[in-house]
């Protein structure tokens, strides 16, 4: 019985729910802007933007409701803000316990260190799952209320495929946490790392050196592709699982032997 994951996960439930409600409200507000965006000539607008922006944000797709949602909500909240937050929380798992004088007690429980770490990491589940459960029905209802329509499968896919993506980002946070074992430093480090990976993905494409960005989770999750082109990148899902597995393996190996601070 994964008692620690259950206990710690429950403690995150309320915060995750508030987060999800906040994102849902934000999404509704932005969805309500769509009719006015629709009236502008998107092609003309796109051409007036620098090429770099067109490439980075896939602005040409904004003329449709799918493209608009992908660019204004998902590219921003799901590809940048949420992963930063999940990595931030991931970075707090054991390092935060060490800062708060809780780690010694956890380490003296009769469970192995790898299991302790795995359960701590698993306790991030609500932050990954709750927004993905709460937001899609709200967005769907919002789109319908505008008199528009959206493929519900595409909407579900963009949320479902974000789960391995957010897990990978959380795992990076956990790895930073164990490597640094200092809560403040780990949280700042994880945010910096995930933001750097975000930039690395987009800039390496722009710089025509795609391969550099291949380590970035952002490479494998593209809401615009999913919502506008209806493409599900299952190889990308595999890559995200691999990134998560490598990050967690690094964390477990180090946590096995490290002296608690």
């Amino acid at each position, binding site marked *: 019985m994964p008692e620690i994951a259950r206990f710690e996960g429950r403690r995150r439930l309320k915060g995750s729910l508030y987060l999800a409600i906040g994102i849902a409200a934000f999404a509704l507000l932005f969805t309500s802007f769509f009719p006015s965006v629709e009236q502008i000539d998107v092609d003309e607008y796109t051409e007036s933007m620098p090429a770099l922006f067109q490439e980075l944000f896939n602005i040409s797709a904004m003329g449709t409701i799918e493209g608009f949602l992908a660019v204004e909500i998902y590219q921003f909240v799901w590809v940048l803000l949420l992963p930063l937050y999940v990595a931030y929380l991931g970075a707090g798992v054991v390092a935060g316990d060490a800062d708060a004088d*809780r780690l010694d*007690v956890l380490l*003296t429980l009769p469970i192995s260190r790898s299991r302790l770490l795995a359960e701590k990491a698993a306790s991030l589940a609500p932050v990954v799952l709750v927004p993905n459960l709460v937001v899609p029905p709200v967005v769907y209802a919002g789109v319908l209320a505008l008199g528009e329509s959206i493929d519900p499968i595409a909407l579900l896919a963009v949320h479902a495929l974000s789960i391995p993506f957010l897990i990978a980002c959380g795992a990076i946070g956990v790895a930073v946490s164990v490597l640094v074992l200092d809560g403040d430093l780990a949280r700042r480090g994880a945010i910096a790392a995930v933001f750097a990976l975000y930039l690395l993905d987009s800039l390496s494409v722009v710089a025509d050196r795609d391969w550099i960005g291949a380590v970035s989770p952002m490479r494998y999750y593209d809401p615009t592709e999913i919502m506008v082109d209806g493409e599900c990148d299952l190889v990308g899902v595999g890559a995200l699982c691999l990134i998560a597995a490598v990050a967690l393996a690094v964390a477990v190996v180090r946590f096995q032997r490290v002296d608690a601070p």
Partner: protein
Amino acid sequence: MAAIRTEGLTKRYGSCRRFPLPWREQPKGEDGPVVGIEDVSLTVEKGEIFGYLGPNGAGKTTTIRTLLGVISPSAGDAEVLGADVTDPAALRGAKARIGFLPSVMGFPEDVTGRRYLDHQARILGDERREELLELFDPPLDREIGEYSTGNRRMLGIVRAFMHDPDLVILDEPTAGLDPLKQSHFNAFVREEAASGTTVFFSSHVLGEVRQVCDRVGILRGGRLATVEPVDELLDRGGKRVRVRTRGDPGAVGVGLEGVVERTVHDREVQFTYGGEYQRLLDHLAGIDAIEDLEIAEPPLEDVFLHFYGEETETEHATTLPDTEADA
């Protein structure tokens, strides 16, 4: 089988402690940098209350964390309930039978005491919880974040004992408890030991160790200075004597065997006395015009002074005990 056995147990904090990040402050103990331990060999028998006495920063917590596998030893061996502390699987089995109360204990602040105990009970067990809550009664339905220091300590005590462990490791357990709860706690620990529980009791308060423990190991600067029955320790530690006279106090303590560290200030003389009581009283009876007299338990530092004899006496005279212990 001994409950705890260590042989040459050593823990040094080198530069490889975590990553040597130059901008990070070195980890601090309560009163200074964390001190390692050097060549600590001791045996704690089953059912015994073993006092582990030393000033803040002497390495008490380092010893405990090494025994519990929180940090790994640099050298030497240690066994806890028969399990090698460097064998995680073996130690895990032993941990189920150990109760641990750290000197500084953090809790999840946003849950109630009851929910925390429920959670810990699912991992450890809690067959004695209700009985313990009659003795130590933190407000279980309040969030731990609202707890006072004393209530946190009580919650920690209940957690440490509720699964009826065979060995209890207590690091400064009474810090933060009010005096009444302290004496309740000390009586409780004695009862537990009487019914077969082994207790490892770390403290920097001599009086407390004297009341509770059977044997005492004294740790200083990371080294185990001595292990002996508590009575012998006190005999060796001597008494702190303070005498104020109406006139010239010059004769007080002079020519009496067993007087060390005699200081005269104004009309007051202070010294540590390691001899027999009767001889002290005879000596004092010969002094004229005693205005005030106090014979007290010596502070821990004075016990150390007595232990280390002349060689540390000058050191004591010039440095504060705590900074000295960290050196």
